[in-house]
C-alpha cells in the first residue's frame, strides 16, 4: 500500500510537471519559428485562466455526453498510460504482466476518443478532422506495435518493468536503432502534433477542437499535453532505460528522460512539415511498416545471436 501511494504521488508530480514544461516549451518554439505566442513560465496558467473564464458555447444539436466523455476520456487514458510506467524497480501504479499490451489498448482507445471529440459537436470542420485522423491514426499504430514487440523480445516479457530491467547493460535505443524513431512518429500522432496533426490542425480552424470553448477547450488542450507526458514516459521506459541511471534516485531519471523525449517530440512537431493525407497513407503502409518489420527481424536476430 505504501509503494502504491508513493508511485501515485510520483505520477501526479510527473504529470503536472510535464504538462507545464510542455506548454512552456511549445510557447518557446512558436515564438522562435513564427513570432507568435507568449513565452514565460506563467504563460500556460494565464492562457488557461482566460479559457476558464470564457463562456462555453454550444453547437446545434451536439452529442453533449460523448463530447464531455471524449475530453475526460482522453485525459484519463493519458494518465492510465503513464500509470504502467515503472518509476523504480516494482514501483508502478498499475503493475501488470502485460503492460505493453495495455499501452497498446490505450493507443487504440485514443483514436476512438479523438474521433468522438470531432464527431460529437455536430459541426463540419471538427467532423472532417475526426475522419481524417482515423485514416492516419489507425495505420500508424501498426509500426508502433511491431517496435513494442521488438523491445519485449530481449526482456522475454510483455511487462514494462522487465523491459526496463533488461536494459541494464545497453539501452534499447542502441540495441534496436530503428525502434525509437518509429515510436516517436506514433507519439506525434497520439498527441495530434505537427506532421501527424490531421485532427486539430490550423487548416481546419482547430479541427476536432474547433467548436471547443471555455473550460472544454482548456480541458482538451491539457489532455493533449498530458498525453504527451504519458507517451514520453512510456518511450523513455521502453527505449531509454526508464529509471536506470547513476547517483540520482530512479524516479528522477524517469522525469529527466521523459522531459528529454517530450522536448524532442515538441521540436519535431514544430520543425517537420505535414503531408497530404493520401501521401502520408502511402508513406505509412509502404515505407514505415516494412521498416518496422526490419526492426522486429533485427531484434529477433540479435536475441538469437
Amino acid at each position, binding site marked *: 500500500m505504501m509503494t502504491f501511494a508513493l508511485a501515485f504521488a510520483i505520477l501526479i508530480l510527473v504529470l503536472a510537471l510535464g504538462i507545464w514544461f510542455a506548454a512552456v516549451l511549445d510557447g518557446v518554439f512558436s515564438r522562435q519559428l513564427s513570432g507568435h505566442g507568449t513565452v514565460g513560465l506563467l504563460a500556460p496558467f494565464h492562457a488557461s485562466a482566460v479559457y476558464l473564464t470564457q463562456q462555453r458555447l454550444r453547437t446545434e*444539436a451536439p*452529442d453533449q455526453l*460523448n463530447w464531455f466523455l471524449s475530453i475526460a476520456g482522453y485525459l484519463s487514458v493519458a494518465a492510465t498510460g503513464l500509470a504502467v510506467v515503472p518509476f523504480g524497480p516494482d514501483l508502478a501504479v498499475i503493475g*501488470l*504482466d*502485460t503492460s505493453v*499490451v*495495455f499501452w*497498446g*489498448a490505450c493507443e*487504440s*482507445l485514443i*483514436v*476512438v476518443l479523438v*474521433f*468522438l471529440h470531432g*464527431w460529437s459537436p*455536430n459541426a463540419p470542420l471538427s*467532423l472532417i478532422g475526426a*475522419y481524417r485522423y*482515423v485514416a492516419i491514426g*489507425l495505420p500508424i*499504430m501498426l509500426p508502433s506495435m511491431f517496435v513494442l514487440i521488438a523491445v519485449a523480445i530481449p526482456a522475454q516479457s*510483455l511487462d514494462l518493468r522487465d523491459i526496463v530491467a533488461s536494459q541494464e547493460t545497453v539501452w534499447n535505443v542502441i540495441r534496436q536503432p530503428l525502434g525509437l524513431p518509429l515510436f516517436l512518429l506514433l507519439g506525434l500522432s497520439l498527441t495530434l502534433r505537427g506532421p501527424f496533426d490531421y485532427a486539430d490542425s490550423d487548416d481546419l480552424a482547430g479541427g476536432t477542437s474547433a467548436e471547443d470553448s471555455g473550460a472544454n477547450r482548456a480541458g482538451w488542450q491539457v489532455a493533449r499535453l498530458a498525453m504527451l507526458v504519458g507517451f514520453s514516459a512510456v518511450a523513455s521506459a521502453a527505449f531509454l532505460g526508464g529509471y536506470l541511471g547513476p547517483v540520482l534516485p530512479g524516479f528522477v531519471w524517469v522525469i529527466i528522460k521523459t522531459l528529454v523525449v517530450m522536448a524532442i517530440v515538441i521540436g519535431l512537431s514544430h520543425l517537420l512539415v505535414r503531408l497530404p493525407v*493520401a501521401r502520408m497513407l502511402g508513406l505509412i*503502409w*509502404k515505407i514505415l*511498416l516494412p521498416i518496422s*518489420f526490419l526492426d522486429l527481424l533485427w531484434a529477433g536476430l540479435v536475441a538469437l545471436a
Partner: protein
Amino acid sequence: MGRIGGTGMTDLLFYALSALAIWSGWRVFRVDSMIRATFALMVSFTSVGGIAVLMAADYIGVATVFMMAVEMMVMGLFMVMFMMNPAGLNPMQMVHQYKFSIAAGVLGFVGLATAVLLTNFPDNPLPENRDTLRDLGIELLGGSMLIFETAGVTLLATMVGAVALSSRRGRFGDSDAGAAPPGLHPGGEPAGRKVEKGGGHGGHGGHGGHQMNMEKTKQDSSDDPHKGHGNMSETEA
C-alpha cells in the same frame, strides 16, 4: 492480475463491470445513431475485457479491449460511409426485422444460458504467481511459433499489397494522376466544368485529366460581371 485488494473488492468490480456490460449492450439497440451504437458495443466489450482481467486472464482481457477499440472504430466508420446518413448524427431507426430478431435473441439467450448452467467448470485453483501469459502462449502456439509468425507477416504484406494494387485504379482514373470525371460518352472528354489553367478558382475539380482541351482555349468564368455573355475564347500564352 486480480490481486486488487481482497475478495470483496474484486467481487464489487465484477458486479460493476457486468452491470456496465449489460447496460451498454442494451443501449446498442436503443440509441438512434450508428456511431453511438458502435461505441456502446465497444464499452460493453471493454467491460467484458475488464472482467477477464479480474479473472487473472490479463492478456485476453487487455487484448479484447485493444482489438475491440480498433474494430469498432473501423466498423463505425464504414457503416456511416455506406449509409445515406452523413456522419451518423441524424436520428435514424436502428432496428428492423423485429419478429426474426426477437426469436433469434431469445433462442440465443436460452442456448447460451443452458450451456453455462450445464457446463462443468474445472475447479483447480492455481498458485498466486502463476504466469498465465506463458501458459497461454504455449497452449496457443506451442512448437509452431515460427510458422505462425511467418504466416502472419506474409498475410499482412499480402493485404497491404492487394490494397495498394487495387486502389490505384479508381472510378475516375488512377489515384495518383489526380481526379477527373468520366466522359459523357465512352472515350469522350471529361464531363463537368472546365478548369482554367492557372486560374484561382476551379478548385481541385480536375487537374491533370484533360490537358488537351485546356491548352487550346480558356473560358471566361460566367460570374465575372464585366465580361459579356457567351464564351469568349482566347488563346493561351
